[in-house]
């Protein structure tokens, strides 16, 4: 997974702001969303992201996997990331 060419992200007090400058649309995430975006930047794959979050938040792996997959698909649908394995 990687960010689309015209996508810019910036850390904020509340989390992260994502600017899809080609569509001129702005999205915001909370700190959990920021952590996922950070891992995408670090080129981690979906399995690694889920494993790391489940461990950090001491949450059920399957619930985290469902939430993260939905979030990633939303990023893809909004042309924020590409290269997401179906």
């Amino acid at each position, binding site marked *: 997974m990687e960010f689309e060419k015209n996508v810019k992200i*910036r850390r904020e007090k509340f989390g992260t702001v994502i600017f899809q400058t080609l569509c001129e649309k702005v999205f915001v995430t909370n700190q959990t969303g920021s952590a996922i975006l950070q891992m995408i930047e670090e080129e981690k794959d979906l399995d690694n992201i889920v494993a790391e979050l489940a461990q950090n938040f001491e949450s059920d792996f399957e619930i985290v996997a469902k939430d993260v997959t939905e979030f990633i698909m939303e990023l893809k649908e909004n042309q924020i990331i590409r290269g997401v394995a179906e």
Partner: protein
Amino acid sequence: MIENELRYSPQNKPLAGYDFTSYNAPLFIAWQLNSACNLDCLHCCEEAGEPLPNELTKEEIDTFCQEIVQLQIPYVAISGGEPLLHPDFFAICEFFRSHGISLKAETNGHLIDRQVAKQMAKLGFRSIQISVDGATAQTFEKMRGHGNLQKTLQACQYLTEAGVNTEIVFVPTKFNIHETSRLIDMAYQMGIYGFYTGKIMQVGRAAQNWEILCPSPQDYQKFFVTLEEKAALYDGQMKIYYYPYDVIEELKYRLESPAASLLIIPNGKAKLIGPLPFVCGDLRQHSLAEIWSRYQKAWRHPEVVTFTNNVITNNDLLKEANHWRELSLA
């Protein structure tokens, strides 16, 4: 136009961050680099033509560019006047692109030849936006004094051939609105990425020429039907963006929800928004971070709130847009 969309966290909890005051810095800078222009358009919001007597110097421009990078502002749009007339246009663009900033330039295209198009392609602009206000020389040249439709279309062709993401901006008026459909088809044939339009803004020279420019409600009705049809026809091949609101509706919305952006005019002053006369900062006196803070205060300033509400009921006040008023912001 920037849209703010609220997205939810994986836990579906509502988020802070959609309000402009929650951002550390602006998300977007609209920079009118110069006031000089080689055309004399009937509808120019900035009333461009001659340079302002006190435009930013090269040193001041350099400082401003550095501040944009330091504040991690992700997106800049450079316009004018005609920005390609500015001697430092390409140096500024190179600086922004070398720092990974998304960059758009808005131009009339008259100075874009094959070589300039190649230079733009190398820089990897988010887009170059060309104003094309008509599908025939007769309407285009009536609207854009000293303009030449053939040169403008040639510029579009050079840009698309060079691989530049090229967009057309079309302002509808009483005498060109009937050419909308034809121009969209021409844009598609030229390989244009996106076609931008919306109601003409009653600001600057457009406000002075309102009687001869403003289309009728019936014309607008047909116009938006055409846009819907063309958007469906070219779906997935060429973007057709249209903003259905006029400047008054925009001001009503912005009073409630100001954009996380700054408008910098050629003399370094920061305007609150194009259609209002208020200035909330000056690059010669304030850092960009200070101007961002002042901008946030300015939208809640009683003078701004009262004037904006008055504009909403009395459109004639839009003629004041370029008679700048400095706000006292403690």
